[in-house]
């Protein structure tokens, strides 16, 4: 009796894994992106998206809102003000979700390492699956990164979103440390 329950659970687990594998194939070949144009990197996105480099051939396309998107592109430096909104957007996305950090600014602060307004390390606040180095990354590098991301998803390696769920306290503590409040409630500017 006990065994049967265990067995069913095991088969269930197996089925789930098989389904996940199939789903990963679809996820890898159809990546919708929310392109948060936080900074300079946004400038190389139009060439990547449009006729010359045409990322739609990878099955990628821009989406209007984070709810619809699979990958969040952080295209450059993040000021504290933007970081709050990026975290908010990231949390609105549906699992599985991936993050690509563009340029040195997201990696280590880049040229703005000593700025009072910009953060220096994106993976401190949200999990980053992939960084693209460079200031700013060329369209070729971006396409290359998308290729890598696709491979990662196929292999089931892009698990940043899980990491975020599991280590939410750590991320949240970092967010609070740097930003004081993530969801700002006051009306600052009016």
């Amino acid at each position, binding site marked *: 009796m006990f065994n049967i329950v265990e067995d069913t659970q095991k088969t269930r687990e197996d089925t789930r894994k098989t389904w996940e594998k199939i789903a990963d194939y679809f996820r890898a070949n159809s990546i919708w992106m*929310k392109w*948060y*144009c*936080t*900074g*300079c990197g*946004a*400038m*190389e996105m*139009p*060439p990547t*998206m*449009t*006729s*010359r480099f045409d990322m739609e051939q990878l099955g990628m396309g*821009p989406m*209007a809102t*984070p709810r619809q998107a699979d990958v969040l592109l952080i295209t450059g*430096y993040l*000021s504290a*003000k*933007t970081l709050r*909104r990026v975290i908010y*957007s990231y949390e609105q996305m549906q699992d599985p979700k991936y993050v690509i950090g563009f340029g040195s600014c997201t990696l280590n602060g880049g*040229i*703005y390492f*000593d*700025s*009072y*307004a*910009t953060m220096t390390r994106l993976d401190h606040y949200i999990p980053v699956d992939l960084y693209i180095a460079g*200031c*700013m990354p*060329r369209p070729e590098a971006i396409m290359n990164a998308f290729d890598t991301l696709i491979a990662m998803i196929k292999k089931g390696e892009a698990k940043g979103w899980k990491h975020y769920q599991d280590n939410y306290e750590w991320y949240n503590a970092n967010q609070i440390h740097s930003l004081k409040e993530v969801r700002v409630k006051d009306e600052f*500017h*009016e």
Partner: protein
Amino acid sequence: MKEVKLFLGPQHPGMHGNYSVHMYVDGDIINKARPMPGMLHRGFEKLMERRYWMGNLALIPRICVVEPDPNEMVYAMGIEKLGKIEVPERAHWIRMIVLELARLANHLMSIGGIGAPVGLYTASYWSTADRDLLLDIFEKITGARVYHMYIVPGGVRKDLPEGIEEEILKTIAYIESRLPEYYDLVMKSPIFHDRTVDNILLPEEVVWELGVTGIGMRSAVNKEYDIRKVKPYARYDQVEFNLPYAPYSDAFTRVRFKYIEAEQSISIIRQAIEKMPKEGSVRAKISTGNALRWKVPAGMVYSCIESSRGEYGYLIVSDGSEMPYRIAVRGASYPQGLLGVEKYLPGHRIDDASLWMDTMGVCAPEIDR
């Protein structure tokens, strides 16, 4: 509730750049609008005070990603004025070519970019791909696609590569042949007419009230008010070009002017390639010893040029040390992007909000700095 508060940006498909406008909307009319800048604030003015005069060359183009070259130019011009440095003749012409190529690239971007708010994406696809050809040229001249760091105090970083002139001429000829196609696709579309003609007006008194410059100003005040004409820098006084101006500024006029200016830029580049001295020094020697430790004489100067969106200027203050004492940036779209949004976006419809931001030429990074 009579009003609903909607957010246009920072992450709205209708907003170019990381910028936000809070709109109080009744039905579809915007009753009140509040700009929300600062998403791209990096504290440039502070960072520049912390770097050497030469070190800043890497920093300044990054102020405005859409059109970085004017930054390099105003910075170089300002230092040249403070240090009384004579720029070699050939460098002037090369600078002019680079600046006009940059202007052309930017106009191409916005000619296609107008497709986004009105839904004509094909135009964006075409023009962005064509703009990439210009970036290829930049890459050949300067080694970078977007941030060139090419115009330096005393001239340009290095001479033009061999045979680039022909290539430039070929590319601009191609782009010139494509412009009418865009014009047919976008500007001749009756639906585009319906949306833009007599819409999003910019009267002359608003221009003066806000301090709008560039295409917006020229299309409203009916005068050829352009820094290139009023106080020519580089060698703009030695080339012939006619800028469009009109007494009535609606969205359509402002977009149309971009086409004409793009054509004028092409003409300027042709003349420059023809008239420039074929050889000679391109960079004046500005210091002896370590260039990084170079000191600029004390003083305060305002240098400005005409970017594709209007008057772009730096107020440079030097106390005679190795680093700038203070640099203040006048972003060309600062007036319309902040006060303009607050005062003149209300009254428009939400359908037009994105078009408003686009045709007024609001560019977030140069506002936020």
